[in-house]
Every structure is written in C-alpha cells, then in structure tokens.
C-alpha cells in the first residue's frame, strides 16, 4: 500500500483514478490544481507517488513537476495527458516526469503502471 496524490481539475477523472487506486489498496488524496498539490506536498512527506494531469488551468502538470524538481523533490510522477505527440512527451520527461499515460486510458493499465513505478522505489 502506498500514499498517492491525484492532481486533476476534472472531478470525473479524480473520482475514476482515486476509486481505481483505492480498490488496488492505496491511500489516495485528491486535489484540483497544481497550486493545491504544491501546498499539500509542502506539508506532507509521506506521499509516494503523484498522478498528475497535464492540462490544468493555472499551473499545468509540467509546471508542477518543474517546481517540485527545482525544490529537490524526488517524488515519482505519472502524468496523464491527452497529448501523445513526441514534443509534449519530451518536454515532460525533461521537466522530470517519470512516466506518461495518454487519455483515453485503461484503468487496469493505470493501476499496473502505478504498481510498477512503486516497485522501482
């Protein structure tokens, strides 16, 4: 079991990802923006992995990852994106994203990727 932070402004996706990860035995905390994620991570050190949406109003997923890495965070980040273009993936990986999933996605695959990322601790 791990502590996972879900960051997405779409309540349907938050609910979907949270429920799937909870049913896989994880503890899930959800926030609706990059700014709220930074606030949460500033006070919590027990988060093992973050599932972050790429496109959010205000701070995007990539902005969030850049801010985390600039602060020295080694938190594992799985990014959800509707964009599958090479350029966007490259930008994300350069910023410090550990893995990507492109929407639409299979919930089973999401859970499997999270498990795989956590096993690489």
């Amino acid at each position: 079991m791990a502590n996972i932070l879900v960051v997405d402004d779409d309540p349907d996706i938050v609910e979907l990802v949270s429920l799937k990860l909870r049913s896989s035995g994880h503890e899930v905390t959800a926030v609706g923006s990059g700014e709220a994620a930074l606030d949460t991570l500033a006070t919590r050190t027990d988060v093992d992995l973050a599932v972050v949406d790429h496109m959010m109003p205000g701070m995007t997923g990539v902005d969030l990852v850049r801010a985390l890495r600039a602060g020295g965070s080694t938190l594992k980040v799985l990014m959800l994106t509707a964009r599958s273009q090479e350029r966007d993936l490259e930008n994300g990986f350069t910023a410090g994203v550990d893995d990507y999933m492109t929407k639409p996605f299979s919930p089973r695959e999401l859970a499997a990727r999270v498990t795989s990322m956590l096993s690489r601790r």
Partner: protein
Amino acid sequence: MISLEPGLVLTALMALWAAIALVLFALGIVHAVRAARERRHEDLASRARPLVIRFALTEDEDPALMTPLREARGPFGDQVDERLLAVLETLRGEARGRVAALLVERGHPTRLRRLAGARRSMTRASAIRRLGQLALPMDEDLVLAATSDRSPVVRTVAVRAAASYPSARAVVTVLDQLRGRGEVPSLVVTTSLIGQGTASSAALGAIRAGLDDPLAQVRAACAQTLGELTSASDADRLALLLRRDPTPSVQFAAAHALARVGRASSIPALLEGTRSPWGPVRTHCLLALLALPRDVTASAITEVARRGDALLTPLLPPSDRPAGSR
C-alpha cells in the same frame, strides 16, 4: 422656456428610482435562479458521478448499482448520461465498452439521432459531437452526412466526430471539406485525419493517396498529417512530394513533415529545397536537415553554409556559419 415644478421633478426622480429598483430586483431574481440551477446541477452531478464511476470500474454486474443507473430518468437521468459520456472520453478497453453499452441500453443514442435532425444548429452540433464520442458503427453515415450540414458549426463538429470512424470513406469525406466553402478550420481537418490515420491502416492509405490529389490544399493537409503521424516509412513519399510538387504551400508542408519523419534518403530533396525561391520552404528544408543526425548531413550543411544565403545562415549552428557571420 419650460418651467420645472418641484412636484414634477420629484415624481420623475421617484419613477427613475423605482425603475432602477425594479431592474436590480429582476437581476437579483435571475441571479438567484441561475445559482439555484447550478447548485441543483452540481448536486445531481455529485449523486450521479460515484455511481457511474463505480459502474465503469466494476467488472461483475452488481444489481444494486445497475438498477438505479438503468432506471434513472428526468434531470437525474440526464446527469447520469452526462457523466457516462464524460467518463467515456477518458476510458478505453473493457471499461469503455461497459459504459458505451449502458448508454445504448438507456436509449441515449436514439435520442441523439433524433436531436441530430433538430432545427437549432447548436442542438444538432451537440448531438453529432456525442454520437462521435460513442462511435457506434451504425452512426457513421449520420456523422459523415453532417459534414455537409447547412451550419458551419455543425460541419466543424462533424469533421471532429469523423475522427471516431477511421475508414477510407471518412478520410475522403473529411478531405472534401477543403474543397468546399473553407469554413471548417484546416486545423480541425488535420486533427481529424490524425485521429483516423492513427487508428486504421485503411484510413492511413487514403491519407497517403491524398498526396496525389489535384487540389493543393488536400495535398498539403495530407503531407502535414503524415508528418504528425511520425511514420518514417512516409519519408520517401514526402521527399518526392517536396521535389515534384509545383505549389509552395505543399512543398512547405512536405518540408515541415520531413523535419519530423525525415531520414538519410530525404537529404537530396531537402538540399534541393534549400534553393527554393520561396523563403519558408528554404528555411523548413534547412530545419529538417538540422533535425537529422549530424554524421549524415555534414556535407549538405557545408554546402548550404557555402552559399551564404542571408535567410538561412542565421539558422545554422555558429560553427557552420561562414567566417564573419558568426
């Protein structure tokens, strides 16, 4: 001269204040009604959302979950359909199939087909967009027919929705937009083609065939799409297009695409393109050359540098620029 009696002025002022108070009261009512409607909408959404998500993720049929979803009618039923469509966009695999099947069972596609013939263009557009989300094979004709709707909004939505039907016929229908009145943005056309080309080889074949179309806009859109699909197997087709096509906009699209999918065999066409009389073609041919590995492009880059083209020289790496222009 008109003399203003104090009584008349007072009456006029009172009437003015009464009118302002009435307008403010009416605005307050409108605001309150809107806020109440939004609260009701959010309340229904927050009741429907967990049910829909649990259903999407549950592999075994649970009657306690299925019954309220199957039987939901009225505003709550509409909200259940909204949430099912929202998660449908996010899911693929078995979960997507389950959600689509429930929407069919609830009769949603039948309602959408009826609405696709509505008088209001926004209603038709919304119905076509949702039919595209559902992507039921039986609706392909309806969605493709909507690309010739009388409203440009509906046509644009239908071209987007056509991305859900990756067939040669759908590609041809989408490309036909470029032959018409030009009211569907070319970006929408290309995005739809990318969706189709990604999903099926038949659609990809039709996009490749578009490189030989008599209309330059179609050839350019197909070249751009093949570049976005980043299939290196199209590099030689695009290089041939760059060399032979007489239209600068098509040459530009081919050069731009080669910056993404080019390979060593593309170098002669790209080098030739750096001599084009048209600036954007020259610059994109050079950018495509620079995107290739240095060990295969060294002599081509040297040749471009030797020519001292004022447009291209600033794009070269400093070490390749002629002395004096570094």
